[in-house]
């Protein structure tokens, strides 16, 4: 048991390290000239500099060192919470992140909570409904929700609820009012993904013999559905929690841009626009760390919730395959 936990933690750390290394390789090894990118980010033309100035610039950004030295520098920095200096804003990247992460966390956590409630309710109703057209409609609804591009949902909500009805502000991040439409936009996607997994899981659970036994004992349909089926059907959905968290984080890029909210997502969009490589690396690393951490917690908690899965025999549960836009 202890061996499993330690092994799983080591694995999580290894995946995170590999994800950081891969992103570093993409950003620093691909054919583009990092000096040119970084000068452009700082708003300077490369030609306007003398060779001496260029060398000084390279030294300042650490680009005179070998790629291995740069990698080592970044890696040890990240382990100490130091993500380097932003090229376009000339401030420590960690300051930028800490200033913005609150807004994104509020957005992500609210969206995750709303998706859990909405996704579970939808899956519950879709499998409980008896009238076939309603059942088909509810079962197909998540596919609809997952098909709409998020920028479209966001613009539609702005047009309808801000400009037509005037209920919510179209942009900004003041107060709970401004949070509603961004949260709904993200939840349309994430609750659809969750509902799809839950409906499938419900269908499998409802065909189990113990459900028939419960009904045969004389329990009502709703009692069986809520008390016997729901808990077991909800278990496999836990395995996609990591995916859902990843989705809320990537969704924040589009959503924060459309609703002009301050947050890590908008920071990512701006950094790519100004080719601010250290910031992009930091955002990707933080997002990957969140994803890895959630998956680790789910893996460690799962056997406590489902005693049929034992740690000693390795991973038994199959992770459901999820395909989504982001």
């Amino acid at each position, binding site marked *: 048991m202890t061996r499993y936990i330690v092994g799983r933690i080591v694995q999580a750390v290894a995946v995170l390290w590999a994800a950081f290394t891969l*992103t570093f390789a993409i950003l620093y090894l691909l054919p583009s000239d990092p000096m040119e990118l970084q000068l452009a980010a700082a708003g300077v033309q490369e030609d306007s500099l003398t060779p001496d100035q260029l060398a000084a610039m390279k030294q300042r950004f650490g680009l005179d060192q070998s790629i291995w030295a740069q990698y080592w520098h970044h890696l040890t920095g990240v382990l100490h919470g130091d993500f380097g200096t932003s090229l376009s804003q000339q401030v420590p990247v960690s300051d930028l992140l800490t200033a913005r992460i609150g807004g994104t966390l509020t957005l992500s956590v609210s969206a995750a909570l709303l998706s859990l409630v909405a996704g579970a309710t939808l899956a519950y109703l879709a499998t409980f409904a008896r009238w076939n057209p309603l059942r088909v409609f509810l079962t197909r609804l998540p596919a609809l929700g997952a098909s709409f591009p998020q*920028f479209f949902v966001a*613009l539609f909500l702005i047009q309808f609820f801000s400009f037509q009805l005037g209920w919510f502000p179209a942009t900004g991040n003041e107060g709970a009012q401004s949070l509603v439409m961004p949260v709904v936009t993200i939840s349309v996607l994430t609750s659809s993904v969750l509902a799809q997994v839950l409906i499938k899981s419900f269908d499998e659970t409802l065909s189990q013999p113990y459900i028939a036994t419960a009904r045969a004992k004389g329990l009502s349909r709703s009692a069986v559905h809520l008390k016997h089926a729901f808990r077991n059907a909800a278990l496999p959905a836990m395995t996609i929690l990591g995916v859902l968290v990843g989705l809320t984080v*990537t969704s924040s890029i*589009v959503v924060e841009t459309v609703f002009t909210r301050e947050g890590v997502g908008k920071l990512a969009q701006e950094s*790519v626009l100004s080719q601010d490589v250290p910031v992009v690396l930091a955002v990707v690393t933080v997002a990957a760390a969140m994803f890895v951490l959630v998956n680790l917690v789910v893996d460690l908690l799962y056997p406590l919730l489902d005693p049929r899965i034992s740690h000693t025999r390795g991973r038994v549960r199959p992770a459901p395959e999820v395909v989504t836009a982001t």
Partner: protein
Amino acid sequence: MSTAVADVIVEDALPADEPGGRRANLAANLVQLARKPVFLLASLYVLFVIVSAFWPKLFTAQDPYETHPELAAQGPGAAHLFGTDIYGRDLWTRVLYGSPLTIKATLIALVIALVAGLGLGIVSGFFGGVVDAVLMRGIDVLLAIPGLLLALSIVTALGYGTVPVAVAVGVAIVPGFARTTRAEVLRVKTLPYVEAARAGGASWGRVLLRHILPNSWGPVAVLAVLDAGVAIIAIASLSFLGFGAAPPAAEWGTLIADGRNYLVTAWWLSLLPGLYVALLVLGLNHISKTLQELTR
């Protein structure tokens, strides 16, 4: 000679091919599909989007770049199906002329994902052991970076434009293909006809190409249709964020992003192109789902 024997055994061993072989099976499936009205509608819409991308002149007589200041910002109507933008350009025409860019990007992304994903999945599932373990850990690492962020890193390194965006999206959807292919190869590998082919003397290479690959193809093809929709959303999102083709090119995402500035006065500028894209993705998803139910 021996391989021919193996092939005969294989064909006898496939119950699905019974009475009339694969052709008859396909025909029966097509008849079944033709009876589904929503599926037909979705297929027709997808077909229309593709045809209109290659021959936009069939569906519009106007020029996508010619400005008419006197016709600026007119709402949707009979003369202008999607209305006009602030320069008086016909929006419907601009959407149609914008299609090839997005469709090209989608195809590039899918080819990258298919080639890399199929390759990784086949090698991983077929060889197993250490190779499988190493490749699948690699896929785990790719999956640990949320797709859009992985794409953003690649765009940062490659620069902006249709092709970098397509490459970025293609790489981001590789893991799904690799996993699906691997699972299928693992499943097919243990089936009796593979053993029969081997016993008949076929080389592993031949077994792989002639028996395992064609029989693992189904779910991968279904995933490809589904991922075409995923790729379209991702590509449109990236160009919406400002990383796509430079103006005046009318990529879908760029059109929608431009229209965003006029949402109060001219809602159609972003919502109608958005709807056009959303319906395409919806159609592709529905096709994929129907095919999945059919092959089950």
